[in-house]
């Protein structure tokens, strides 16, 4: 029997290798933008405009037009090619948009407005508030759900906490990677980012529940076997399912990522990261944590981790 659980500290190390840079990126974002991930106008308020010109333009020149109209902190970047630009600015006063676009036409020739989003600052604050409420509601509901699902099992609290830890792991991984991409590629968290995060949490719990469910079933069947062995057996029994399911979800998401519209690319990428992390954590975080708890390894956890890391380096 392949021993998965035995190598648990390696998995924790792998998780740390992803989470720690993510946390650092979140720290940098916190200093630079005031939040762990770059926030889009959905939360901050402001205007976003995507324009397609008939000839290549340089972002700096486009930006200049905005500056002349009094929008100093405008960001302009090209998207698909040099002819398409994405412009982020403060909320535009009434009528200003038409004036700016007229100036742009004068300078760079005809343009097509692909999209324009404008969100007032009050709405942004409210969206942030409802986002926090939604996250809190999701957290409470999922915790409640786990407690409910495990109500008849001894040590229900332990399973609940390990499942929650795995979910938290996925949130950290997804947010961390997104934060890194925010610093590198300018990715911004919008309302859809939150949607992806909440969906990821739901799926993460679901993956963990499938594995835990098997443990629950195997414990009475294999009395006398050490806990670690039962857990490992349960993992192996469900790993086919986990991988097969995961592969299918990946097929779909990768197809949308590469062939789907550009507007939801970040959303799909976030889902994909979260989903990968969710499957990983259900096998390599939640279950090993159960064993760590069972064997009371908490006390020497840190010692072992610090003992192993240099060995790897």
């Amino acid at each position, binding site marked *: 029997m392949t021993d998965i659980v035995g190598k648990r500290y390696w998995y924790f190390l792998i998780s740390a290798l992803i989470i720690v840079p993510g946390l650092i990126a979140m720290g940098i974002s916190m200093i630079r933008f005031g939040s762990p991930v770059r926030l889009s106008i959905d939360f901050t308020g402001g205007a976003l405009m995507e324009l397609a010109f008939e000839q290549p333009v340089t972002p700096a020149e486009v930006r200049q037009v905005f500056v002349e109209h009094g929008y100093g902190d405008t960001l302009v970047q090209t998207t698909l090619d040099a002819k398409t630009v994405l412009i982020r600015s403060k909320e535009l006063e009434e009528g200003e948009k038409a004036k700016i676009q007229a100036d742009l036409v004068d300078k760079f020739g005809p343009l097509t407005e692909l999209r324009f989003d404008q*969100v007032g600052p009050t709405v942004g604050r409210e969206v942030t508030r409802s986002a926090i409420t939604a996250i809190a509601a999701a957290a409470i509901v999922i915790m409640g759900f786990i407690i409910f699902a495990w109500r008849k099992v001894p040590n229900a609290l332990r399973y609940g906490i390990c499942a929650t830890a795995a979910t938290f792991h996925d949130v950290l991984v997804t947010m961390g990677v997104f934060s890194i991409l925010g610093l590198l590629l300018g990715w911004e968290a919008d*309302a859809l980012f939150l949607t992806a995060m909440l969906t990821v949490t739901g799926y993460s719990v679901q993956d963990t529940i499938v594995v835990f469910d098997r443990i629950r079933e195997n414990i009475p069947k294999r009395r006398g076997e050490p806990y670690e062995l039962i857990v490992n057996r349960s993992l192996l029994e469900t790993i086919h399912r986990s991988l097969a399911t995961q592969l299918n979800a990946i097929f779909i*998401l990768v197809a949308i990522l590469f062939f789907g519209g550009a507007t939801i690319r970040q959303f*799909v990428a976030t889902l994909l990261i979260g989903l990968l992390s969710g499957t990983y954590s259900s096998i390599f975080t939640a279950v090993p944590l159960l064993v760590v708890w069972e064997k009371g390894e908490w006390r020497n956890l840190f010692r072992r981790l610090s003992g192993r890391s240099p060995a790897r380096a």
Partner: protein
Amino acid sequence: MQQRDMTLLMLIIILTGITIWIVWPNNPGLHIHLGPIHFDRDIKVHRGLDLQGGVQVVLEADLPPGQQVDADAMAAVKGIIDNRVNGLGVVEPIVQLAGSNRIVVELPGIQDPELAISTLRQTGLLEFVDAGNTFLPPGLEVQTSFRESGEFGIPTPTPEPTATATALATETATPTPAVTPTEAISPTVTAEATPSPTPRPRIFRTVITGRHLKTAQVGQDEYGRPQINFTLTEEGAKIFAEHTAANIGRYLAIAMDGVIISCPRIESAITEGSGRITGDFKLSEARSIVIQLRYGALPVPLKVIQNRTVGPTLGQDSVARSTRAGIIGVIVVLLFMLVYYRLHGIVADIALVLYALVTFSLFKLIPVTLTLPGVAGFLFSVGTAVDANILIFERMKEELRQGKRFGSAIQAGFDRAWTSIRDSNLSTLITCVILYWFGSNFGASMVKGFAVTLFLGVLVSMFTAITVTRTIIRTLYAIGGENLRDSKWLIGL
């Protein structure tokens, strides 16, 4: 083969037939006309703004801080906006109240968002205009002195030339008792269809405006028909008394934003500052006019707090791309299931195709407005649908490896996998509900779209992945019997 499986199989085949019909691209819709029964329903895909281009605006009551806007006033504002949106001639617009002081307006396929927004935001203007001897049908757009110059015109004692009057009365649509959103005549159409006999369009004289109005209520006349009672302010009453006394027998049209909503005839001089509007209208129409009278006079100023515009090219591009992405993704999943689970994979693939058919039919029937994230949610739920089958098949394989007979292995596979499927789907459904709440809070149709399609997808998947798969597998084993056990390759053991 059991009777129950047979029945289920028949039902599944019928369902497949129906859903294929619904999903068929050029579905004619349901139009049943059997004697008194009339049932008309178009069956088509409703595309969200991000897929067809258009503008979404969130308007908020612009009141001084601390001042609350009451629900009636907002309902009236919504009614007025509804009318204006209809005036824009947009196909399938959406006007919704959001929260206590907001209105979400979605205008698909609009060409000039700025113009549309400014039209929506105009403060409503209610006028009583002197129509002379001309009956002005509701829905007709007229020019009035107040709207043109902001002034009340000087009384014109001489009646207008009858030529204009008949021209107007005959060339416009048949008079309708009162305006309702669907019956409103598009202003542009009227303008084009009317060959103007006079060189200049006639400007009607504004007698009083909404600010002269004190109250308006729905009442009943002596025959029990609905009528509208109103009272005027002191100043309004004075002007009104003078005008009505001098114009008995003529028409006094009531216009909202320059569109006629009612055109009563002056029956007697109204000197006491209160009057009534009678006409051939239904109770609901009378109510709608009262709302417009009351709040057209006191409209809540609105400000745009959110504006999202998607150009038509981006929308079109997104449709093409997401369709292609969806087809590629689903084909890969179908192939994977076939290769990995072989015979069972074929069954899962059948269930998956049926799943797609049923879900898409529901989108068309309910109807669900499809947005890009909505399409993503739909495709994502394909994964959930397959997941249920994978759980079941893995379980069945285990049971078969332990040497169980097919019948009991199938039974055990489905029974044992059920708790996992139920629990995991429940957590997704709960997440969807939270997302829906989050999305509807501020008109984020993208978030809502994802939540709705994922929710429906998960529900349908529980039916197709469990009931459909089980029925087909049982049928297969009823035909193939225990012989199948020997073909281990086929069942993927």
